[in-house]
């Protein structure tokens, strides 16, 4: 990573869902080494904001920039810098755990050798189930497979995680905390949502209350 990594920033952002404005006038900057915890009640637009930040949808007003360049123009450079984990795990029931992880990694331009993926699965405690079909996994185990991508995508400076703690047990939560701490220590940054209180101690998460930008 370069000594001065580009920052993800949003300027006067507004989001529309149907005919309703969810929020407006949101300014946001994600600095290196920072973990932002996005908070707000259900339906306040947390997932919508994460999708805007990832470049999956376009804002009703304002712009999201990566290193000063709008996301659409940053293109491949931005996609290489991002690891986005949606609420859905993007796993296929009919593939094995290892195959699913390899597919996701290759999709994002990693060589994804079996050994590397095996190592990532070992970290999330699913190495012994690597040849099992995803169909046979529990919700928590599926979440862990999705999170194994963070181990492979460690070099991506920005992580955008939608409810990453969902369905995880205490051990899984600790594992994710450790991954986030290591990521921040490398100079990476993350935005995440979580409906349960974070146990992350290092770095202390910066809270962004989406309520403050709600359109009445």
């Amino acid at each position, binding site marked *: 990573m370069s000594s001065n990594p580009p920052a993800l920033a949003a300027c006067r952002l507004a989001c529309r869902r149907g005919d309703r404005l969810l929020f407006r006038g949101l300014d946001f900057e994600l600095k290196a080494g920072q973990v932002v915890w996005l908070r707000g009640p259900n339906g306040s637009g947390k997932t919508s904001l994460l999708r805007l930040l*990832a*470049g*999956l*949808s*376009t804002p009703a007003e304002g712009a999201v920039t990566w290193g000063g360049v709008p996301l659409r123009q940053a*293109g*491949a450079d*931005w*996609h*290489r810098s*991002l690891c*986005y984990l*949606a*609420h*859905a*795990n*993007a*796993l*296929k029931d*009919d*593939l094995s755990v290892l*195959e699913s992880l390899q*597919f*996701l990694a*290759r*999709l*994002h*331009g990693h060589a994804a050798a079996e050994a590397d993926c095996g190592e990532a699965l070992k970290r999330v405690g699913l190495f012994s189930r690597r040849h099992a079909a995803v169909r046979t996994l529990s919700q928590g185990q599926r979440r862990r497979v999705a999170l194994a991508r963070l181990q492979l995508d460690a070099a991506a400076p920005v992580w955008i995680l939608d409810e990453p703690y969902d369905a995880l047990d205490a051990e899984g939560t600790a594992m994710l905390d450790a991954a986030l701490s290591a990521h921040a220590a490398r100079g990476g940054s993350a935005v995440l949502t979580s409906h349960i209180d974070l146990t992350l101690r290092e770095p202390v998460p910066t809270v962004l209350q989406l309520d403050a930008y709600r359109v009445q």
Partner: protein
Amino acid sequence: MSSVFATIVARDLRLAARRRVEALLPIAFFLVAVSLFPLGVGPEPQTLRQIAPGVVWVCALLAAMLSLTQLYGTDHADGSLEQMLLSGESLWLVSAAKALAHWIVTGAPLVLSAPLFGILFDLSAPANLTLALSLLLGTPILSLLGGLGAALTLGLRSGAVLLILIILPLCIPALIFGAGAVSAAEAGISTRGHFSLLGALLIGSGLLAPWATGAALRIATE
């Protein structure tokens, strides 16, 4: 860059191999539907020869439609589609990969089994060869246009019917020139014109359909 293309094709083929029964359904439909015509129309060889090209082509078209509704549906539902959009690769490439995988699973078996029906309908050897060749050029067009329809109707409740209503009219040129080539061969006339037009349709849809599909996917995931 083409590794994303190969990755998507390989994954879709693997998924089809895991769900063999589902993957074989369009072929089974094709076999049954084509076999019904001689029973319904009567075993008069002259009549059969005359209707053979149209029957085989129309059934191939319907068989290709059958498997299209799920082309992007499951990827959309489980979040894989979003990951594909974020791969940093052009959506043209992603859509083309999905269409190619669809063709290998449904189109290629249709091409291979078509000569069997040529014999069933008492087509002459040159006409039978023309039938297989016209399907070889024509079925990729159906997969490409079908991918566009699947992307346009993604997430709609009555998507399956709407998809067929959108795509069938677009497939008419391929149907006309494909079936026309076989009739021409049967009558002993040159098929060059038909094949040139089919080839042009394939190139045109190969260039434009994945591009339009990519735009439709972007709108569907907004």
